[in-house]
C-alpha cells in the first residue's frame, strides 16, 4: 500500500513536470520569452506541492513550515514576474512579502512554544 502510494505520487509529479517542460506555453504567459512563462508555471507547481503539506500536515508546526516555505517561494515568483513583464515594482512586493512572512513566522513559533510575546 505504501509502495503503491509512492509510485502514484512519483508518476503524478513526473507527468505534471514533463507537461510544464514540453507542452506549448499558454499565450497569456508569453511576455518576452517562452522560458520565463515555463519558469512561472514551474514555481506555481512547487507552491502547490507546499499547499499539499499545508492541507495534510499531521501537526500544526508542519503547516507553519509549509507556510514559511510558501512565503519564500512567492518572493522568487515576484522576481521572475518582474523580469517577465518589465515592471519594476514587482520586486518591491517581493521585499514586503519577505518581511511580512518573517514577522508572521516568528510570532507563530512563539505561539507554538506557549510563552508570552515579550519574553
Amino acid at each position: 500500500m505504501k509502495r503503491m502510494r509512492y509510485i502514484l505520487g512519483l508518476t503524478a509529479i513526473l507527468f505534471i513536470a514533463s507537461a510544464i517542460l514540453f507542452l506549448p506555453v499558454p499565450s497569456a504567459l508569453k511576455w518576452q520569452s517562452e522560458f520565463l512563462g515555463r519558469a512561472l508555471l514551474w514555481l506555481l507547481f512547487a507552491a502547490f506541492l507546499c499547499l499539499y503539506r499545508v492541507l495534510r500536515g499531521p501537526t500544526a508546526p508542519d503547516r507553519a513550515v509549509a507556510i514559511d516555505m510558501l512565503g519564500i517561494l512567492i518572493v522568487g515568483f515576484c522576481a521572475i514576474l518582474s523580469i517577465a513583464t518589465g515592471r519594476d515594482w514587482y520586486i518591491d512586493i517581493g521585499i514586503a512579502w519577505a518581511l511580512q512572512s518573517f514577522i508572521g513566522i516568528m510570532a507563530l513559533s512563539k505561539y507554538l512554544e506557549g510563552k508570552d510575546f515579550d519574553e
Partner: protein
Amino acid sequence: MNETLGYILIVIGLVFNFFGCIGLIRFPDIYSRLQASAKCVTLGTCGILFGLFIFKGFTAVGVKALLCMLFIILTAPVSAHALARGAYRSGVKPWEGTIIDEYSEDIKK
C-alpha cells in the same frame, strides 16, 4: 553574455526550489522537513534573485534584488530555528528512527 549567465542562475534556482518542495512532501517528520526545505528553498530563491541582479546590473531593480537576497539569507535560518524550537517545546516527537536527541537531555537539566 549577461543574459546567459542570468538564465543559468535562474535555472539553478528553480531546480533547488523544486527539490526543496519534494523534500517538504517526502520526509517523515517536521525536523527533517525543515532540514531539507529551508536550505533548498533559501538557496533557490537567492539564485533567482541573483539572476535578476545579473540581468539588470546596478540599476534600481538590481540593487533591490540584491537587498532582498541579503534579507532572505539573514532571516530564513532564524525563522527555521525558531520553528524547530517551538515545535519541540510544543511536544512534537521526532521520528522513531531518530538516533540521537540531545535537546531532550538539555531540557531536563
